[in-house]
């Protein structure tokens, strides 16, 4: 009883603080100075039509690097913590439906293609590397669900992950050497604005991010799928 009333007091205090913040908030009617800088200069400096992509990949590239590192550590820790259990081969109680297998044969290439489209066109349309990686991971889930096609090899996933992470850092350092700074996208020529090859290195960087995020999310899911119930 005492515990509950303390909790309610705590929540009420938090609510009071939040209410103060909310009543003091005034909606802005124009961009603040830093965003205005981005809006005015990002299209010409980076060549990306999607300003969010321009910010994520070039202006705040270090954030993205750290974020990818966090994902990598998460996937590694999950693999480490779960793989201690012994593997048992448990038969699923219901066999797979024939329709699901046929449909996943049809849909799997389309899903992967949509993922690739999303991360290559990250500078023109919404989406980008993170979303493309998530769609690739969904394709892997469908693959696991329907058990069609060739087996997913762990080595391939590891190689993809290592290669894309390494390539990301190399591109960043190339940015320092050849252009203005870390992850500068002007190491490649900026094409005509609004086409696929318009943003210098951004499509390449975003493809690498997409592959890396996809490989890591799929690794988490494969680890959670394969080692069935731990037995001691």
């Amino acid at each position, binding site marked *: 009883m005492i515990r509950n009333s303390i909790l309610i007091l705590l929540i009420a205090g938090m609510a009071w603080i939040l209410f103060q913040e909310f009543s003091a908030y005034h909606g802005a009617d124009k961009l603040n100075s830093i965003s205005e800088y981005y809006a005015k200069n990002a299209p010409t400096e980076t060549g990306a039509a999607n300003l969010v992509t321009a910010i994520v990949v070039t202006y705040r590239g270090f954030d993205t690097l750290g974020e990818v590192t966090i994902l990598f550590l998460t996937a590694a820790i999950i693999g480490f913590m779960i793989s201690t259990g012994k593997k048992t081969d448990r038969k699923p109680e219901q066999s797979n*439906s*024939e*329709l699901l297998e*046929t*449909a996943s*044969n*049809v849909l*799997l*290439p*389309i899903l*992967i*293609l*949509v993922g*690739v*489209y999303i991360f*290559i*066109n990250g500078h023109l349309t919404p989406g980008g590397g993170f979303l493309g990686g998530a769609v690739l991971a969904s394709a892997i889930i469908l693959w696991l669900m329907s058990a*069609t*096609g*060739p087996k997913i090899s762990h080595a391939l996933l590891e190689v993809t992950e290592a290669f894309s992470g390494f390539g990301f850092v190399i591109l960043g350092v190339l940015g320092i050497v050849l252009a203005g700074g870390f992850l500068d996208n002007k190491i490649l020529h900026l094409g005509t604005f609004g*086409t*696929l*090859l318009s943003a210098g290195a951004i499509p390449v960087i975003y493809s690498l991010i997409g592959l890396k995020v996809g490989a890591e999310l799929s690794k988490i899911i494969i680890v959670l799928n394969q080692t069935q119930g731990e037995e001691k």
Partner: protein
Amino acid sequence: MKFKGIFVVFVMLLAIWLVLNNTLQMAPLLIGAGVSLLLSVVLCTKCSVFNDIRLTPKTFYYTLVYLGVFIVELVKSNFDIAMRVLNPALPINPGIIKAETILKSKMARLILANSITLTPGTFTIDIKENILYIHCVHIDGDNTEKYAQSIVRKFEKYLEVLYG
């Protein structure tokens, strides 16, 4: 014939890529061709789903006819089910019935089952070899076998020509 399957998948993926990009410039076309070639070779060397389609001029004609029949069925049965839902008495007589299909190809069975599922009032609940189990909202008449066959026959005769 593996090459036919790969070719069909390649053309399908390239078409989807072009529609998504909504442009015919050189660079997206080349990248799309590369990606779809890679995907079709890697994913479709083993799958046999796309091998059964017959690529003759007759196919296109029958595809159009099939689409027409399907859309008419879709709209008709949708209004039927809407009337049943809105009726205060809820006049339904549900049940799971059994129907046999003569289609052999997996792709054709997928299309058949999807068509049955998409027309409201009937939906494929399970498929075992060539027997379809169909759940109906309203079973017309007493003879369930005949009713089941009539549902399947509607679509089957066109798909038989397309896939054999």
